[in-house]
């Protein structure tokens, strides 16, 4: 039942938020408000974390009542939920998370129980593992390849589709020359660039 599934790796984290408030707002509200104020797309802090494909954060306030004859359940803590799909192994991912977005991680988890014990990458890994839930069923409808390969492929698909549209009806010589220029400009084998940026939302 553990996450021993071939790539991509799923990570589900439930971190309890401290009960209480800062004098005006509960710690759960402060956490939610901070999450909602984060920049999006390429400016999201998660764009700095290597190999993150898709992820979400939310505050789980409580569970739902399904109506009679059900029993009413209430959570005694609110939880910060982090759900992520990434490439690679968990330790490497979390270490790079801390190295690239330490300040944001500290702000996101700052109101969570026992997070004050986190002071470096290793303690961050330990903390997240204590909050990790096992994935029961996982479905990969896409790919688990490293993010730089996916982004390069998307860049190339966009550029080549443009090329194929524009270069219709050329003579053999002109087409040959245009394709050489295309390969030189787009460098299909080079993952470092040109390519799309993580979270890029404009062309």
């Amino acid at each position, binding site marked *: 039942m553990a996450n021993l599934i071939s790539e991509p790796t*799923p990570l589900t984290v439930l971190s*309890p938020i401290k009960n209480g408030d800062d004098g005006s707002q509960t710690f759960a509200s402060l956490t939610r408000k901070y*999450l909602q104020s984060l920049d999006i797309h390429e400016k999201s802090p998660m764009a700095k974390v290597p190999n993150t494909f*898709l992820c979400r954060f*939310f505050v*789980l306030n409580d569970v739902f009542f399904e109506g009679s004859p059900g029993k009413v*359940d209430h959570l*005694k803590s609110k939880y910060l939920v982090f759900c992520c799909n990434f490439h690679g192994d968990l330790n490497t991912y979390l270490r790079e998370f801390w190295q690239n977005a330490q300040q944001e991680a500290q702000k996101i988890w700052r109101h969570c129980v026992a997070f004050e014990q986190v002071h470096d990458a290793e303690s961050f890994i330990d903390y997240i593992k204590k909050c990790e839930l096992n994935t029961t069923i*996982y479905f990969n409808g896409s790919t688990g390849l490293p993010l730089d390969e996916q982004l390069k492929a998307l860049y190339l698909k966009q550029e080549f589709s443009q090329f194929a549209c524009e270069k219709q009806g050329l003579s053999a010589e002109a087409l040959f020359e245009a394709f050489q220029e295309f390969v030189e400009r787009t460098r299909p084998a080079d993952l470092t660039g040109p390519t799309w940026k993580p979270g890029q939302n404009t062309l």
Partner: protein
Amino acid sequence: MSNIAGKSYAMTVITPIPKIWAWVNLLKFWYSKNIRKKKSFGLQTLSLIHYARWVIIRPSQFPRLSSNQPKEDLHYAYMLFFSNFNGSWSQYVDSFHMAIPKGLDRIWKHNFKYPKSVPLQPFHRYILHNQIWTDHYYNAYPLASSNDVKAAIALRAALLEFIKQSENMSPEEFQKAYKAFLFYNQQHIAKMHSAPVINLADQAKVERVRLIESYEKTLRDEHGKPNF
């Protein structure tokens, strides 16, 4: 708060399941995955999904990191469902209902008051009642759908091979090979554009942050102290 990041929608649903059935489900899913080697419950027929997962959590499994943190005392176990898909909420829920109702029922049928995926309206109500909104959603490729990603990977591999094969061709030979390349890879060739919903979701997010900030200002005095 937004469930939308580019072309992806984040759906999160939490539903109660009697504790005994949680154990049965865990066993059933383990058997299905490890013995029968069936993992997808028909989901592979829905190409609009990037990634999806189900997580069953028993009351004792809610993380408790300090003795000061109260221990959860719940009547039910809970099943969390997370999905990242392309398109709208109703397109997704309706495709589940239309394409894989049996697969879906196999996963959810022991959950308390699960109405089954057919008929549609009670299923819609069940998902809406138990859905949680996302506070921050990040997508590494907001301009791309799941099919775009798969097509891009296939096209790049084909293109790298074509470049190698066409290295020493004459322009005439190249033209012929290029046309064949386009013919065999046409299903992967298409330009991507941002969908209108991306811009609307982004505008809504900016406006929401502005409203929160302006509302907060009215609640605080000039020194930033709460004014109520």
